[in-house]
């Protein structure tokens, strides 16, 4: 084992605050893509890191900026960084000069903490305060109506407050206020033993339990140079693709619900239920929890016969997707709804099926392979139109690819260990882990000292896609809103953390 692992798969580059804007501009000009930004503290010095994808199967670029707590905002150059900077402002006490929207994001107007939660001196006390309206652009005029919808909305849905300014059916402006559910998950990791904190990763986003746990485990395994056995790598693919399967069936159930296709909706939710029941029989957990661990899996799984177990679900699922695709009343509502241009998708950081439906051909499973994905064959579906129809087509093909991956992975299982032996190293290590979840790219960055976590950063796919989503709502109409939202397939828990 090497002495001190620092960020794996990264080309690190130290830069100064003065050259930050120029370097970022060069990266964008070279076609590179910013993945996330986060701050940390090293012996009282603020470090801000920018993770950038330079291309497929080449190392990431990691820009590191050692600075005082004030630095220039990149939001005007790299719009997707706007939210990351506001998060660092709210949680880290940093200040970004020249930010085009310097308003609170994670900690709402009206709420405060005695000290910044992830600030120089660490958290103290508890978040407190009372509701205050969000900072909003003013929309005035004859007939303009304002609707604050939430934080508690109709039906069994996650908490969020959506503000619409509209005239009749036409939406002038839309502003989602999220982070009501902010639980301070990143800070919850701090102080935990790194090998014991998987349970927290599993609870960042319930329907993304595998994606989160896997990205977390891979980050720690990279930090500690642990080789995961081949059988565990294949089983990890199986868990991740089962998660994709039930999430995608849920997606189609929900999408059909918004187009009032009742049987189509019920069929999607029933298929989701059946996959969850298979998951429980296989693993003991409907959410595939309590299995992933640093070094592999906590116990072996008998997944060799998965193909026969899933047979009916696969056949009925294919018939279901075909039927949806032949239903004019359903497709009519999707075509041309909620268009996201390729440029906006890139600039604002769209990810997963949302990005792929707008022509961005990206998938971490292929571009930066992990687990056993480099040994398996699969296609990455891409569409160009960027409407709800394209998003649903990408999901449908992605569901088919998930089934193909499940068949391949279960067919290739060979007997062997599922958990690597390792000793927890002393000193400081840093690691990066990532997964392509059903909703897109998920990153974990971990810094560990003497076996205990000091800083964990989570970049969830919904954090990226919630940033993008409003762009497809402004200027559209109220009737399409629910369909458009369902076509994005967002969660709020992962975004809020």
């Amino acid at each position: 084992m090497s002495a001190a692992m620092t960020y794996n798969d990264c080309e690190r580059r130290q830069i100064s605050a003065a050259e930050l804007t120029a370097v970022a501009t060069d990266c964008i000009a070279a076609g590179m893509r910013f993945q996330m930004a986060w701050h940390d503290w090293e012996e009282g010095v603020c470090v801000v890191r920018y993770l950038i994808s330079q291309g497929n199967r080449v190392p990431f670029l990691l820009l590191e900026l050692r600075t005082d707590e004030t630095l220039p905002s990149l939001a005007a150059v790299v719009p997707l960084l706007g939210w990351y900077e506001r998060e660092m402002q709210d949680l880290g006490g940093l200040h970004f000069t020249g930010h085009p929207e310097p308003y609170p994001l994670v900690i709402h107007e009206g709420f405060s903490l005695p000290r910044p939660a992830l600030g120089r001196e660490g958290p103290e006390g508890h978040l407190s305060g009372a509701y205050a309206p969000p900072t909003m652009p003013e929309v005035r005029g004859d007939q303009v109506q304002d609707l604050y919808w939430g934080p508690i909305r109709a039906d069994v849905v996650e908490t969020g407050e959506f503000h619409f300014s509209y005239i009749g059916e036409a939406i002038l402006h839309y502003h989602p206020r999220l982070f009501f559910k902010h639980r301070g998950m990143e800070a919850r990791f701090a102080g935990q033993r790194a090998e014991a904190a998987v349970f927290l990763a599993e609870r960042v986003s319930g329907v993304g339990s595998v994606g989160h746990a896997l990205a977390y485990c891979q980050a720690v395994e990279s930090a500690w140079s642990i080789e995961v056995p081949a059988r565990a790598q294949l089983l990890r693919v199986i868990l991740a693709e089962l998660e994709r399967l039930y999430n995608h069936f849920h997606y189609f159930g929900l999408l059909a619900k918004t187009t009032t296709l009742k049987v189509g909706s019920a069929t999607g939710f029933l298929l989701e239920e059946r996959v969850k029941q298979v998951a429980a029989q296989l693993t003991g957990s409907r959410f595939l929890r309590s299995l992933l661990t640093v070094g592999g899996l906590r116990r072996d799984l008998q997944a060799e016969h998965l193909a026969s177990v899933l047979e009916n679900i696969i056949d009925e699922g294919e018939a279901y997707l075909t039927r949806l695709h032949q239903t004019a009343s359903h497709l009519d509502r999707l075509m041309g709804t909620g268009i996201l241009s390729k440029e906006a998708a890139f600039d604002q950081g769209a990810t997963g099926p949302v990005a792929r439906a707008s022509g961005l051909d990206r998938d971490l499973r292929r571009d930066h392979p992990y687990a056993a994905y480099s040994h398996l064959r699969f296609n990455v579906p891409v569409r160009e139109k960027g409407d709800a129809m394209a998003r649903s087509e990408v999901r449908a093909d992605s569901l088919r690819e998930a089934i193909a991956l499940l068949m391949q992975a279960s067919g290739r299982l060979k007997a062997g260990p599922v958990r690597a032996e390792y000793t927890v190293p002393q000193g400081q290590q840093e690691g990066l882990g990532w997964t392509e979840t059903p909703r897109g790219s998920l990153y974990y960055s971990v810094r560990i000292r003497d076996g205990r976590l000091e800083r964990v950063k989570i970049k969830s796919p919904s954090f990226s896609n919630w940033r993008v989503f409003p762009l497809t709502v402004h200027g559209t109409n109220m009737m399409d809103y629910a369909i458009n939202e369902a076509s994005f397939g967002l969660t709020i828990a992962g975004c809020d953390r």
Partner: protein
Amino acid sequence: MPVWTWTGLKAGKAATRWPQRGPDGQEGVLGMPRWDPAACRSDCNTCAAACPTGAITVANGTAVVDYGRCIVCQRCVEDCPEGAMTSSYDWAFGVRRREDLIWTAALDGPEGQQVGKRVARSLRRSLHIRHVDAGSCNGCESEISALDNPFYNLHRLGIFFTPSPRFADLLMVTGPVTAPMREPLLATWEAMPEPRLVLATGTCAVSGAPMDGGYAGGHGLNELLPVDVWLPGCPPNPAALIHALLLLLERMPQQVQGGHYGAG
């Protein structure tokens, strides 16, 4: 005939008739670990050290097990050297009194369960629920919305979700209650007509675990609302949710007393 109507009719009924008969759909789902104190070594602290949520603590040489903090992670089962903690399928953990989730050697007899207020007869076969997400991980929402899928088909039991708290008999709360959700949650409760009931759904809502203790997580519904049924589980599966709802309506018996499963 329209194709969807035809395929729907051809597929036939998908709904289970559980709890009358038929499958509960939870084959293989692990529940709360069972504790056998007789197998326990008094000088051993292994399970308490392994438990990430403080559901197991050791005080004066004896373990205290609080299922209200259990997230079903099975770590205690894996780590216990004596086999005193064993995996089980005990997931129907809804109880009327919070104390019944804490393991006690001496049970106080079945009358202890009857302290919950009697549910009006008129509610028993028609219940309307207002759900509030007070900071969950979305696992609970995933399982609650599964209640409306064709397999569980909650409507068959006369139980419905309603958008308006004005029409709701039951407040179903998930999540540890984060600071910004405290006011909206209490406002929802205030808006409900009497008699009104509360179901603390999932371990977060029961005790705040594992989200309590941080700067942003809450402590669940304790001391916030008068809870009628406490249902730990991470998340509680749809059958556990149905059991808790029917327990509330006095249509199913409580399974857990003093932390003992099957003692109800």
